[in-house]
């Protein structure tokens, strides 16, 4: 009967894994795999980096659930996180473009 939301402190990598996103180390790796880059956040501490990663993941998750994109990803650099997605071939306009 109790509710346990299980909220823990998660790293950007863990957040990306939680939302089923592919993780890349560099933007070049993501674009090489056919992913399109979206927003890039370069926060100045680890908590803001995790927050930025989660905001990117939630935005991309919504687009994926709507069927606008095929797959989501996260470029996790040492001092920045960038969202990326694999375009849906059937979808006409790509989001953020």
């Amino acid at each position, binding site marked *: *009967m*109790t*509710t346990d939301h299980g909220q823990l402190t998660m790293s950007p990598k863990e957040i990306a894994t939680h939302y089923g996103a592919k993780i890349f180390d560099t933007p070049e790796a993501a674009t090489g795999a056919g992913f399109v880059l979206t927003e890039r*956040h370069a926060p100045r*501490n680890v908590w803001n980096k995790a927050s*930025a990663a989660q905001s*990117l993941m*939630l935005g991309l998750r919504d687009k994926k659930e709507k069927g606008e994109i095929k797959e989501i990803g996260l470029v996790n650099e*040492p001092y920045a996180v960038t969202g990326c997605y694999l375009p849906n071939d059937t979808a006409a306009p790509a989001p953020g473009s």
Partner: protein
Amino acid sequence: MSQEGKPPDPGSPTDGPAEERPPAARADTPSALSADAEKDAQVEAAKARVAAAREAAQKTGAAAPAAPKPPVKKKDEGPKPVDASNHPLVRKLNEKLGDAVVEATEFLGQLSILIERARIVEVCMALRDDSETPFNYLSDLTCVHYPDDRSTPFEVVYNLYSISKNERVRLRVATNAEGIDSVTSVWPAADWPEREVYDLFGVVFHNHPDLRRILLPPDWEGHPLRKDYPLEFVENRWTENHLPEFSGVQHEQVEQRRNYGLEILSVPQEREVRKLFRSGKEVMPKDK
């Protein structure tokens, strides 16, 4: 090798500290030479004993397995919330309002009750007007965002206090952005906290007398305490429209601050800094 059966030699190092030995033993005499030989013999004997002890230890180690290590004591997981369906207050609410209570838990003596969204005003009214424990003080009203819960991602939390009985209770209501009924009719003090929740989470409170943003500008986009809103400053339409342009002196100041690595975005009037951010240049030196 061993000295068993030998009479004790006053010059032997085993006899005691050097200062207790007679001075003649330290001189370069035949007796001193024999002492050196004996010393060498003792060293050899000690080496043999060490080798024998090692060998014995290896034999016993191979024969008998090592003793098991004592189990590592697990860290206590700590207290967990327990079901509080039988709490007197919960029973009273169930009797009065039927199925308004969804679940009740107690954690470290703190009672927390999840209420049906449509019944919140009714429950608050009942708790306020209760004859035994009148919860006449709305201590706090806040909200939590659980983005993974797609149907009801927000939980509005009411912390109530009974001044006369010195008791507390926490009410929670799961909702989505469509919102819930305002409790300003029960406690007028809920006015500003509900505006704050609306401002920072985007939860709408129906029948609120003056529901508008309380902290952020009216034309601000987004709700900063949602999990999909990044913590760090992000350029948006409001900042473009409202923050002023720099003067020449301010340009120079920003450039100096940038060179010294002092630039922070909390300083007002930093349009130039935002331009630098947009162009992808580094403004702050990164942490090493």
